[in-house]
Every structure is written in C-alpha cells, then in structure tokens.
C-alpha cells in the first residue's frame, strides 16, 4: 500500500499496537529544557527510576535564561532554581546538558537541527509544543507534556494515537519580501487555530521544495498554531547539506549509510491523505496578526475587522475581546498601527537566514525614535556566525539591541517582556493575551516586516522598501552548508 513519509517513519518505530489504535513508539531523541522537566525528574526520583537512554537524551537551558551578558548571575531566584534543577538532574542521570554558559546553548528547536541532534527519519520528542519544528528535516517530532516526558525518560517510548494525515501543498512563487512566516500565518488564517487538530501535516509542493531548510522550519514550527499534532517535510539534498559535518550528525561510513536511508524517505506518489489543501503562495502578501490568536491575521494592505463581520456568536465575542485587548478599532488600516517594541527572535524566526532577512531592511537605516528594538539570536552558534560576518554591526548601528540567545520575549519568562499596553511587532509564534508580558500587545510578523516596522515606527509593506544588497554577507554566512 502506498504510504506517506509520516507512515513510513511511524511504522518503523512501532513497538506494539493495541486494538484501540494506540501505538507504543520508540523515541530516538528526547530533548528537554528547564521548565517542563523538573516535575518529571522528581517523579522518577520518587519511584527510583532511571533515565533509560541518557545517550539519546539532551538538555538545554533556554526558556528563562536572561539574554544579557552571560558574565552576570541569574538574579530571578525562581529561574535560577529551575536552571540549577536541570543541571542537577542532567548530572544525576548522565544527560548531556547545554547550560547557560555552553558555546552551543540556544533555543531547543534551534540547536537540535543545527547540532545534528535532529536527523531525518528519527522520532523526536520534547516537552514543548513547538517541537513540530524538527519535522522540517524529515523527523517525526512531537511536542509532549511532562507526564509523557517522564514516560520517555523511563522507557524511551511513548503511547500515541495514530494521527490523521493532512497534506498542505504550497505552489507558486513568493513575492519579493514575502517569507515562510507569511505563508504559515496565511495558512493558519484560512484553516483556523483548530483546523489541523489531530493531524500530522505534510507540507508538499513546488514551493516547499524550493524553500531553504531554515524556512521549512518556520513552516513546521507554527503548524502547532493551527492545532497540528506535528508537521513534516520530505528530506532532500538541502537537508543533507545542512547536516553534513554537524557535531552530532553521523560521519564517515555512517554518514553514507544514513544518507542512503534518508534518501528513501519519500511519500509514495499514490499515498492518500485524510485532508488536502492547496495554496497558491504567489497571492500571499506580507501578513500581520491583529488579534489574540495566530489565525486572527490579515495582509499588510488589509484592515482590522469588525465583530459584525462574523456570523457565529462565539466568534463575535472572541473578536470583541481581541479588539478590546489589542486596543484596536474596526476598520483601522494595518499600516496605521504604531508600534513601541520590535522583537526579532524565537524558535520561529531567529536563525541566521531570518537575521539576514531583517538586516537587508535595516542596513543603512535607523530604528525610529521611541521604538525599543532587539535581536535575540536563536543560539550561541548563530550569534557567533552572525558576528563573524558582521551582521551584528548592521543591527547595532541601526539602534537595535544585540542580545544573547534564549526564548526571551516570545514567552517572557526572563526579564525581556512588554510593559502593559506596549505594542510589539514580533517574529515569534503566539499573540495570546499577556504572552509577551502582562497587558502586552503582540503582532506576529516576519523578520523583514518586523525590521521595517522598527524603522518606520508602524507597520509598513516591506515590498515598498528597497532591500540592501547583502550578497557578500550572505555568501560568507554559508547558510546552506553551515558546517563545510
């Protein structure tokens, strides 16, 4: 029977299947961080259980690390305690830890792929919903809760109901200034926050194949905002080049063997899906979210909707609540919305290519007076690579803060947060109420759109801005083969 890539990986990892459709799946990689792991480790300790495969388990501090100079101690006592707990737990169980001071520290979903911990064809879990990111390399990756994490620690397996299959085919050429972030916001707007619930989403089509590995990560990352169980993309040459030479990727003969296997991970041409959507991406304009969930999004030439536009009573109430929280009036043009803060960062958009996208807009320009703008690279490695090619200077000269890596203002568990009422153009993934700080107002945008908003002090169609020529920087960035 014809199968999708998801089915091939799934079936290759099933240890047992019960009549009710629950499968016990072997897990090849378990990534963990300081926030969702302490209770799981505590429960293991209470029951005198060990981590079964510390060699397949990796820990990193990312959610509440400060993004200022690492020479200072962490002053938030609760954050420091969580970080200490992770260090203690990792040491106790023999797990590799990328701590606050590690040269490879970074956001878990950024460092997994960049260090070669994430590989095509593997099963991967992490106690974080944005684990879907790793699907961009052809891994089957699930965000899980703390109890499930404990189960994986103890057994290296997880019980899962087999998800349904959804194909999202992306066709057409992107307009200049439009990125994967705009595509995924557009898709979520059309399918809704619950549109992908219960499904593994496979991104296919011409455009998906043309996108860089890092752009594919942005797509897969935000599929969770459409409710997807996870997302996946067939691995190709681009993925292999991205991984080759990475610290934890196989090498020598094992590399050859791995590539041979990875090259076989394709969806059969006659494979079937439970749901299929096709999007013509050439029609997508830069997107800006206006509300309190990622589906509440419109194009840059659009305007804030009115509750009256919605037939459903619950929807109307939600839109009313959104407009009240966001301090927006129906009919306001998106380009008339002024912003106070710009955040370029997060597991959605803090990779080197994202920073280059933003830098093209920023170079030679200044952040608007009164706007607070920051760049938080996704990892120490990205920070160093950016500094090596001079990218940081473009941001600093324009008036951006150039920070250390972490989840930062995407989740506001560290000191980086909005003040009540502040309005932020953010490259992160969630515009939920209070997400970036109590009372903070989030507009989700691409890195280029965030950069443009920083310059103008309001949203502006990035297609109208002539981007700087960064050919040399881009060449030196070795985006496609970071480890060659």
């Amino acid at each position: 029977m014809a199968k999708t890539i998801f089915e091939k990986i799934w079936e290759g990892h099933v240890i047992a299947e019960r009549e009710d459709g629950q499968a016990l799946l072997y897990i090849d990689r378990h990534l963990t961080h300081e926030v969702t792991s302490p209770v799981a480790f505590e429960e293991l300790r209470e029951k005198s259980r060990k981590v079964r495969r510390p060699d397949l388990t990796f820990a990193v501090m990312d959610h509440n690390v400060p993004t200022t100079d690492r020479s200072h101690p962490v002053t938030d006592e609760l954050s420091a305690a969580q970080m200490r707990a992770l260090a203690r737990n990792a040491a106790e169980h023999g797990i590799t830890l990328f701590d606050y001071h590690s040269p490879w520290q970074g956001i878990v979903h950024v460092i997994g792929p960049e260090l070669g911990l994430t590989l095509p064809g593997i099963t991967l879990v992490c106690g974080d919903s944005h684990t879907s990111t790793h699907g961009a390399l052809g891994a089957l990756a699930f965000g899980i809760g703390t109890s499930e994490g404990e189960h994986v620690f103890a057994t290296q397996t997880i019980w899962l109901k087999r998800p349904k299959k959804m194909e999202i085919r992306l066709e057409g050429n992107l307009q200049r200034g439009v990125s994967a972030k705009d595509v995924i916001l557009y898709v979520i707007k059309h399918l809704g926050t619950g549109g992908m619930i219960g499904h593994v989403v496979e991104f296919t089509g011409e455009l998906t194949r043309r996108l860089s590995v890092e752009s594919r990560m942005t797509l897969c990352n935000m599929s969770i905002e459409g409710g997807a169980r996870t997302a996946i993309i067939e691995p190709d040459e681009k993925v292999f080049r991205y991984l080759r030479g990475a610290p934890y990727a196989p090498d020598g003969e094992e590399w050859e063997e791995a590539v041979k296997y990875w090259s076989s991970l394709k969806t059969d041409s006659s494979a079937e899906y439970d749901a299929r959507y096709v999007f013509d991406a050439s029609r997508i304009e830069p997107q800006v979210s206006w509300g309190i969930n990622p589906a509440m999004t419109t194009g840059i030439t659009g305007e804030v909707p009115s509750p009256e536009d919605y037939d459903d009573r619950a929807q109307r109430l939600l839109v009313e609540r959104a407009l009240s929280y966001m301090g927006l009036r129906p009919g306001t043009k998106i380009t008339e919305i002024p912003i106070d803060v710009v955040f370029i960062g997060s597991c959605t958009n803090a990779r080197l290519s994202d920073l280059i996208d933003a830098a093209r807009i920023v170079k030679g320009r200044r952040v608007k007076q009164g706007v607070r703008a920051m760049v938080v690279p996704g990892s120490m490695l990205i920070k160093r690579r950016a500094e090596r090619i001079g990218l940081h200077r473009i941001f600093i000269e324009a008036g951006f803060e150039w920070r250390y890596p972490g989840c930062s203002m995407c989740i506001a568990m560290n000191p980086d947060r909005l003040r009540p009422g502040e309005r932020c153009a953010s490259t992160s993934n969630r515009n939920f109420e209070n997400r970036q700080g109590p009372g903070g107002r989030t507009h989700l945008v691409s890195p280029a759109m965030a950069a443009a908003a920083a310059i103008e002090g309001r949203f502006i169609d990035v297609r109208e801005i002539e981007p700087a020529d960064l050919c040399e920087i881009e060449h030196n960035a070795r985006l496609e083969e970071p480890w060659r």
Partner: protein
Amino acid sequence: MPEPIRVIHGKAAPLEADDVDTDQIIPAEFLKIIEKKGLGKYLFYRWRYNEDGSKKPGFILDEPEFRDASILIAGKNFGIGSSRENAVWALMDFGIKSVIASSFGDIFYVNASKNGLLCIRLPQEKVRNLRELARGGRLYLTIDLSEQTITISTGESIRFEIEQHIKERLVKGLDDISITLSLYDDEIKKFEEKMPSFLIPKPKRFIIE
C-alpha cells in the same frame, strides 16, 4: 499516579469562550514553580487578577454560585497552544474534575488523561445547550465514566465517546510507566538491538565552526 475515576458528580460552570489557550489557563510566569500542587490560585490568573494583584470582578469561577463548580463547560479548541501540563495541574488544584468541550488541543487532551482530568468531547450543539443550562448556577451533572454517560439534574442523559485506553487508565487509576515496562520491556530491548549505529549520537571532539 492518578486516583481512579468512576463517577464525577458536581456543579457545572459555563466558560463562554472558544480557543482558550493554555497561556490563558496558566500564564508562563507561574511555570517557574517546580511543583504540581498549589497552582489553582494561578488558574486563569490574568482573567481573574489585575496587574497589582487585586481581584477583577466577573470571572465565572469566582462568582459565588460557581465557586464550588467542578465541571467546566467550555467552547471549541479548549487547551490549544503551549504543551504546559501546568494547565491541567492548575485546573485540578482549583477543583475542576472534568472539562466538556466540542474540541481540545491535542497535547492538553493527552496531558489531562495522564493526570485524571476527564476531558469529554461532545458535538458543538450539545455543548452549547449545556452551557446555556449551566448559566444559572444550578446545573448539576453526574458523569459516569464506566457507562460513558452524562446525566443532567433533570434526568436527561447524554452519551459520550472516549478512547478505550484513556477510559481504562482513568477508571483503574493505572500508572503508564509500570504498564509499559511490565508488558513491553523485552520488545523495547529487541528494538534497541536493531537500531542502526548512525542513529546513536557520537559527538565529535573537534569542530571547526
């Protein structure tokens, strides 16, 4: 290990909102607490409290007639977003034993099942009706998990579907890890023996970035 559940009897409270994400159920700042217990006071924190810590009026679960509610009737897509299991712990610590909605975020639904919070999916129309009935603060429901029925104080009974493995685990209060290890340890070992060597991470000592 969760307590076994057979019958939940309690007052229902209507939560008139779709797309309630786990950031709303418990904000990120409270995820720094390393314990499951005591999170109830942070449940729906931003909906219930002002920035200065004073109480906001009007939140349904703080209304006198709903303070003892143990069943929440929500909208659609309840528990979407972040994977934080703290959302389940906060609901349970607050005294909520069951959430009824037309759909749930996938991760939240699984997390709930691991902790003994009974999530019940019903068709949108039925959920809406229950929410209407619950408005007055006098709707008591009896949820019989074994029978898969919800009985309303008036006597009407609604049947619901639930995954058999979740039902079994909740009814018996079973510990997942013990089940897996007692039944499947040999299979796991066999699987591990067959894993190709390239799957095992071998960090390289010298890396030129």
